């Protein structure tokens, strides 16, 4: 990992004090999968935040205009406590250093704010963030009509302000809203969602506590799936699965996720509609003034 020599480096071996907290109750750490399930959902099949397993957190405070006033388009999304901002710049001239391409190019940057996770993040993009940027780019490339702006580039910057699970899923939705508000031609909106698999149970839109973390003992049939789905064209633009599962379970998870995306689509479309109506009414007002 290259380090930025201009910045003051903190002590390398610091770690979150929260780890000490965990050590005290060893039972939880040694918990078997069945117990894990009990921790995540009570006996009455309700999750900690009072959702049923197949329920997602509501998309709230979706703001599309003016979040980043200098950007061509921007969007802000809150999905539970996961909060992120996305700004879209361009299309503009491609910087010289990159290769020539007749089609338009997308540049994506995915960044966690240093204070967004439980563990502190560095200022530079780390490995995980680089890979997430790549995943975001690949997903959006499938949705954006790249041939409409040849030899130009569009930049998509996503900043996670608070991470409470499923950041990539929220980023996909947010970025496609920002792209739409920047009037970048797209085939369809990409709507992201995550599914957590527990033995015999699927949790839609997991929070940070519910997300899959590699564990030593109880790892069979435990996994996390994030997809980016384009509801109108019925295509999958992003698909990331981590953890151990059987093929049949993956099919189930995919089904649950796509169904959710189809449900969210009208909501997201409504947000966009409002933006368009607002800008149109503003324009007509301006004309009257003239």
């Amino acid at each position, binding site marked *: 990992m290259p380090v930025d020599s201009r910045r003051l480096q903190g002590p390398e071996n610091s770690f979150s004090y929260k*780890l000490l907290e965990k050590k005290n109750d060893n039972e939880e750490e040694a918990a078997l999968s069945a117990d894990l399930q009990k921790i995540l959902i009570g006996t009455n099949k309700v999750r900690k935040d009072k959702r049923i397993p197949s329920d997602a957190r509501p998309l709230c405070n979706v703001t599309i205009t003016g979040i980043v006033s200098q950007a061509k388009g921007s969007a802000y999304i809150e999905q539970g406590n996961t909060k992120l901002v996305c700004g879209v710049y361009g299309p503009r001239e491609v910087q010289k250093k990159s290769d020539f391409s007749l089609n338009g190019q997308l540049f994506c940057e995915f960044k966690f704010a240093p204070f967004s996770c439980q563990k502190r993040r560095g200022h530079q993009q780390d490995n995980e963030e680089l*890979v997430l940027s790549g995943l975001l780019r*690949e997903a959006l490339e499938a*949705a954006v009509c790249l041939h409409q702006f040849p030899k130009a580039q569009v930049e998509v910057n996503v900043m996670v302000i608070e991470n409470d699970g499923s950041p990539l899923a929220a980023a996909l939705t947010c970025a496609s809203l920002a792209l739409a508000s920047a009037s970048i031609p797209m085939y369809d909106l990409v709507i992201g969602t995550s599914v957590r698999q527990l033995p015999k149970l699927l949790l839609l839109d997991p929070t940070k506590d519910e997300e899959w973390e590699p564990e030593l003992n109880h*790892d069979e049939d435990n996994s996390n799936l994030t997809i980016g789905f384009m509801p109108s064209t019925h295509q*999958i633009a992003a*698909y*990331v699965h981590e953890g151990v599962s059987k093929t049949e379970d*993956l099919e189930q998870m995919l089904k649950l996720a796509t169904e959710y995306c189809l449900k969210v689509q009208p909501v997201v479309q409504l947000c966009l509609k409002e933006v368009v109506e607002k800008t149109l009414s503003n324009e007509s007002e301006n004309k009257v003034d003239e």
Partner: protein
Amino acid sequence: MAEILLSEAEKAFIHHGVQDDLRCDGRTRLDYRPIILETGLVSNASGSARLRLANSDILVGVKVELASPSPDKPQEGRLEFFVDCSANATPEFEGRGGEDLANEICRFLQRSYASGDTINLAELSILSGQQCWVLYVDILILECGGNLYDATFMAVKSALYATQIPSIKVATMDGDQPELELSDDPYDTKRLNTENLPCVVTLMKIGNHYLVDPTPEEECCSSSGIVVAVSGNKKITAVRKIGSGSLHPDSLVSMLKTGSDVGAKVNKTLMIKLLEEKNLEKSQKVGFMR
């Protein structure tokens, strides 16, 4: 990945070949190219493997070192992956050119090896919370002939199979510091249980069909595909979509199924071959001059 310029006619030729289940090199859609594999080539490494999948050439070295375990996982050792794309492979890898690809592969390795179901990291613990083994897995991509994911994973698995971990004992506790005693006998080593380590299958979609083990030309023809990591017990440990295209959920599910079947077969064959090689005599090593 290495960019190859293909004319429309050449692309059409490949397309038709895939349609008729006869690819340019005479394979069917689900055939692999010939693989050459040898372990134990690098004498300074604790375990190494060189794998040649047609023109893809991968060299993996594993170094075993002592370290203190990470504070959140005191009872486990760790695996550290590092992928290096040599500029020898293609001129594009020069400087920082191969970094994105290297990061992607590295992250995918980490995630698919993360689950306790694939590798038992407790095996690498020496003294809980104090000392553990760290396996540095360094992957060198020497030549790029398509299908890097599959080749890398096979080579990593083989290198880990061949890795010899010296036996070490905690002799005395000198105050807080443990005193470690290394066995006098250099042959007093143990091997890891590598039965369940994942193999990867890359499935590329060309036209309405998908194929395994794509050549660089075929990769160039395809806009999307998936990489599936399949563990020895036929469970899927990680999946991600690659390329900038999108996939229909139905074709994705069928790709996952084929992927897990093929992956299980690859895994089984690899284990058989590794065992065969282990039983060979030392003098029969071939080395790089082949």
